[in-house]
């Protein structure tokens, strides 16, 4: 399935400065693997050393958090949008 991954501002430097990237994948896990294969530097910002998604990075398929779907096994349909939403704290 061709899906669009929206890259949040803090991570764009590691994704060739792009706001979004098109990847292929049947599940969220596959799509993110394709993304980090394309942009190696992104991997350590998204995943821990033992391959788990970092807890301060949330991933959504369209408007649903994958933690409340099937996590990285969440199935994708053509044209879905994956959003990566890291925790930010600025305010002063």
């Amino acid at each position, binding site marked *: 399935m061709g899906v669009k991954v929206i890259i949040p501002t803090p991570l764009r430097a590691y994704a060739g400065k792009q706001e979004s990237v098109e990847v292929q994948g049947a599940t969220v896990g596959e799509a993110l693997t394709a993304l980090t294969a394309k942009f190696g530097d992104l991997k350590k910002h998204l995943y821990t050393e033992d391959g788990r998604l970092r807890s301060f990075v949330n991933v*959504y398929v369209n408007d649903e958090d994958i933690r409340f779907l099937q996590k990285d096994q969440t199935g994708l349909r053509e044209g879905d949008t994956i959003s990566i939403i890291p925790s930010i704290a*600025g305010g002063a």
Partner: protein
Amino acid sequence: MASKIEVPTKTVAAATSATLSNEEILRYSRHLIMPEVGMEGQLKLKQAKVLCIGTGGLGAPLGLYLAAAGVGRIGLIDFDVVDFTNLQRQVLFGSGDVGKPKIEAAASRLRDLNPDIRIDTLETRLTRENALGILKDYDLIVDGTDNFPTRYLVNDACVLLGKPYVYGSIFRFEGQITVFAEPDGPCYRCLYPEPPPPGLVPSCAEGGVLGVLPGIVGTIQAMETLKLIIGKGQPLVGRLLLFDALAMKFRELKLRKNPECPACGEHRTITHLIDYAEFCGIRGEEAEAPVTSVPEMTPKELKARLDRGDDIYVLDVREPHEYQICNIGGHLIPLGELPLRAAELDSSQEIVAHCRSGKRSAEAVEFLRKAGFRKLWNLKGGILAWSDEVDPSVPKY
């Protein structure tokens, strides 16, 4: 999943606050002529008590619009002092306020805007020791903070006290806004169970921010606060509003309550406030900081050696747009590009690395040392210290 949030606005009100004076009716006429607000809504605003944590980028529009709207009691908490660099976005302050405690300047401005309301000033840092005692006096808590430990502290305190928490955060050109409200809604820990490791997400001082961004996000927080008080419209409970200023796009994502959330879930393990600096990994980081082990050269020493004609390679590891602001003639290789471009350096030469304040260049020196370079120095205090100690014509930024 619309939830009714009960914001208790019936306090033990004195006779005066249960009505509006003629002057107040005139002041708020533009509210009163709307059926959605009317006298009932304005009285709710008058009786409401809102705590604004922070009077900076987010706190400025927040304080201004809550005061303008007639929120009867506004608590301001901030321990900081107005700095010149704040004026680019912290619009509560003026040039004459530089050096003053923010709380003083903020209260003065808000009292001038609306002398009828009560402004509580708390010139203190919010801590695990004082948070519950401070928050309990208010109906609603609004987040104008700029760091993770305080956000988790405020969240946990709000969950323990049962207070709605209007959240807003920014980074460069993006913002997030939502309302965390029990019992139906999620809390901050449902959204982000853990913070990022320190240093991964830069602050506004380190990463920069377009000044108007907190203005937009803080104003949305003010709007949500007012809606919660008057009980009208659909609040952002269970909805994460994302704002991308460059694309000028708003998006909305669903926020769900996590049944296993340690703070607000079915089996709560957070029953009191914890050490948030430790939770956010800050104590650990401080203990391991390798910066002091990097060999340093002061700006005066570098100047003396350059004047003497020593063969020194000045390596500037800042970004190109910083080089344009000011430079001392160094060779520019941004820190991120150093791994790829280290081959441009001559290990037989003495290399003095510098950045803005000395932090990035310390990382550069550490990287080059591991790559086998030996004649390395970090310029202590960076180009800021060069400006202070050697050449004041070099602008600071």
